């Protein structure tokens, strides 16, 4: 059912869900409101998650830094991921949710890929701020054998369910690892399974793995096994298609945050290496 309606790729947008015309929020409107509404994902460590009643994470801090640079207060729409990115952009950027929550002025953590813009004519991408890929935290004694995943034909590996990292593990070595893939739900649980000795490795998006590994109580080596699905992507933002001057201003401020070292500092404070994407795509 939904997990499936889920995968409807580019067909849905512009369908019957559209409640009304997109409300343009160009720069002057946002400025006069005094608040930049930033869309971040829910439960998405180390990018945006709640801890001790506080919203924290790399995307949360980048949003705050952008608002500050624009002379605005910051407000967050904490987005629950829907079935696919198109739905997320509809809920988070150009229309808002079906239940009436207002969208953000800018959404962070959007893949900076022209195909996203091609499939969503109501949004415009803004500058990328990180290159993201996949990484594995593995017991140092086993690191060599994990490089080609062969280790997991006999040892267990933890992964967050439903992620691409999960799919890579289930697909690798002609599906031979399936019996040893331990599924956890929620970022952080994979590292816990590793620390408790239930698995010899955990796998996921690079930022998550680096973030969890840097506070791990069990020794760990980080590797990047090769797999044709484990590609890197650039991560950026998105604004409404008719808020072009806001998008341009965000691009300028993102460049300034990169140049001043602020981005690098934010990433480092979560144990994540800042990998600056190419500026022209």
């Amino acid at each position, binding site marked *: *059912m*939904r*997990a*499936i*309606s*889920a*995968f*409807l*790729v580019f*067909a*849905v*947008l*512009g*369908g*019957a*869900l559209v409640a009304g015309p997109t409300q343009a929020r160009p720069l002057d409107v946002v400025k006069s409101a005094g608040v930049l509404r930033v869309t971040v*994902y*829910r439960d*998405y460590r180390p*990018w945006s998650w709640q801890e001790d009643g506080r919203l924290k994470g790399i995307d949360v801090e980048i949003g705050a830094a952008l608002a500050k640079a624009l002379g605005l207060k910051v407000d967050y729409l*904490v987005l*629950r*991921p*829907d*079935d*696919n*990115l198109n739905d*997320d952009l509809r809920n988070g950027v150009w229309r808002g949710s*079906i*239940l009436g*929550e207002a969208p953000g002025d800018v959404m962070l*953590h*959007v*893949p900076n*890929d022209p195909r*996203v813009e091609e499939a969503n004519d109501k949004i415009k991408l803004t500058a990328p701020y990180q290159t*993201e890929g996949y990484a594995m935290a593995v017991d140092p004694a086993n690191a060599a054998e994990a490089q080609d995943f062969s280790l997991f034909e006999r040892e267990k590996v933890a992964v967050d*369910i*439903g*992620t*691409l990292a*999960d*799919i890579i593990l*289930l*697909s690798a070595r002609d*599906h031979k690892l*399936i*019996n*040893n*893939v*331990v*599924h956890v*739900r929620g970022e952080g649980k994979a590292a816990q399974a590793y620390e408790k000795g239930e698995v010899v490795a955990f796998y996921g*998006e690079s930022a998550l793995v680096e973030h969890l590994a840097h506070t791990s109580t069990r020794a760990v080596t980080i590797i990047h096994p090769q797999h*044709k*699905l484990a*590609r890197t*992507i650039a*991560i950026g933002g998105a604004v409404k298609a008719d808020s072009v001057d806001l998008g341009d201003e965000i691009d300028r401020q993102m460049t300034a945050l990169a140049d001043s070292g602020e981005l690098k500092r934010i990433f480092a404070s979560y144990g994540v290496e800042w990998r600056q994407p190419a500026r022209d795509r």
Partner: protein
Amino acid sequence: MKRTILASVSILGLAMGGAFAGPVTDADILNDAKNPKEVLTNGIGLQGQRYSILDKVNTKNVQNLVPAWSFSFGGEKQRGQEAQALVHDGMVFVTGSYSRLYAMDAKTGEKIWEYNARLPEGIMPCCDVINRGPALYGDKVYFSTLDAQIVALDYKTGKMVWHKAIDDFKAGYSNTAAPMIVPTKANGALVVTGVSGGEFGVVGRVEARDVNTGEIVWTRPTLEGLMGTYKGQESSMTGKANETWAGDMYKTGGGATWLGGTYDQDTHTIFYGAGNPAPWNSWLRPGDNKWAASRLAIDPENGELKWAFQTTPHEGWDFDGVNEVISFDLKKDGKTTKAVATADRNGFFYVLDRTNGKFIAAKPFVEKISWAKEIDKNGRPVFIDENRPGDPTKSEDGKQGKTVFAVPSFLGGKNQMPMAYSPQTQLFYVPANEWGMDIHNEPVVYKKGAAYLGAGFNIKPIFDDHIGALKAFDPVSMTIKWQVNNKAPLWGGVLTTAGGLVFYGTPEGYLKALDAKTGKELWKFNVGTGIVAPPIAWEQDGEEYIGIAAGWGGAVPLWGGEVAKSFKGINQGGSYWVFKLPPKSAAN
């Protein structure tokens, strides 16, 4: 105090001309199919036949049918009215989209009360904001909400009596099906629900609660390897772990029970369907993956699994196994068998022995099925291997698996809209859709900031002039006796009556009456918005009333492409329509 209230209410009931005022009992529920004056259950009887014994409206006079009243659900919340209404104590109870419940005067349509569930922020309804209807028992009316609660209200006042979380909406759970009341010896009447949910790892289960308190009596997970409970203790495992699943995949393997169930008193069995297995890409989960894409037969006393039947083993096309299971007596070769029938998403119509789940027969009810050649004598599909979506990791560029054209599409030969069975004609009336899909497993769909493996779909009609087709299916000869085509996909359910009629609604907005024997259209009326709900009939002051919820929405309009052309321009809505014969015709 309570006694006084009940007394005064029953006097009111008498004054309204019904001998049926007051609390709904076990006997009332079990007798629902035979009592034309009320509609107490989803399915017009727990067996789900959707057959009304009323014949005051019939093939000879149905052309005279006129509106008796219409009721607006109000507000700005229109879209997607999929509910079947209930009738009791002079009132009609119906749910509206966005988890709303209405009680109306059955004769005039005047509003008696309205209940609006306060929906929290952050719910993520899967397939539109619909609800499929309430349940009645005792002095309460029950319904489930988009934030995965089950709510019990005083049916006279609409005041909340209890509510319980079926599961955590924050974890992706929701609920839209009509609850079902089942009387038991051990624990009295139980309110039975399933679970629905969108996020990865939601696993199906059926659960039964005390009607008075909402406390759980038993739970039965659908997937092999998972443990059921009885009164808070572990009871028994569903099947055996890892018999048809690899690794720990069964713990998060789908099989959601999102459409609700039926019950058969003869065999004292609950029938419930389970959705597709997860993840979507079948190459990642070797094995049959029981009991996803299956029908389960459950003992209402304790939640034990009596038998199960898997319609699509190792499912790979999104053929949910949730479609309703209808009990009926199969009269074939001079022998009567206690049978059940179900029209699966996978395009085949199945007849099983309901005492033991034994396979009797399966034949296509839609055309050009491409994923299986046939169903063999053991009830197992004969797969056409080249029409399974390919393994994306085997493709040359790793970008997408082989594309196949699969029929039916992922929305199924039949979806949530319930069919009906007439003991009079001994035919099933199946609201079917003829459509296929280009489908491929796709490694790169972006999800939550990351590339994500899913499937790409492009849904397409098969015929130029229609997608929908109402089919009269003979469960003895396993053939289609007649069909009536419809341009847009059918998404509402069916009612059949002793008046020799079949009633159903279309997205184009027509409620139609057909001759149950021939399919000849005898009457239609346009309610001004699309119909995606099942009709009912009841007797009111000696006259037969026909009721239907109206309001376009549900899963179909969420899809674009070529299919969208068939329903372009249909407006949303939210209302309840009731029809009857004008006085002089009623005398016929």
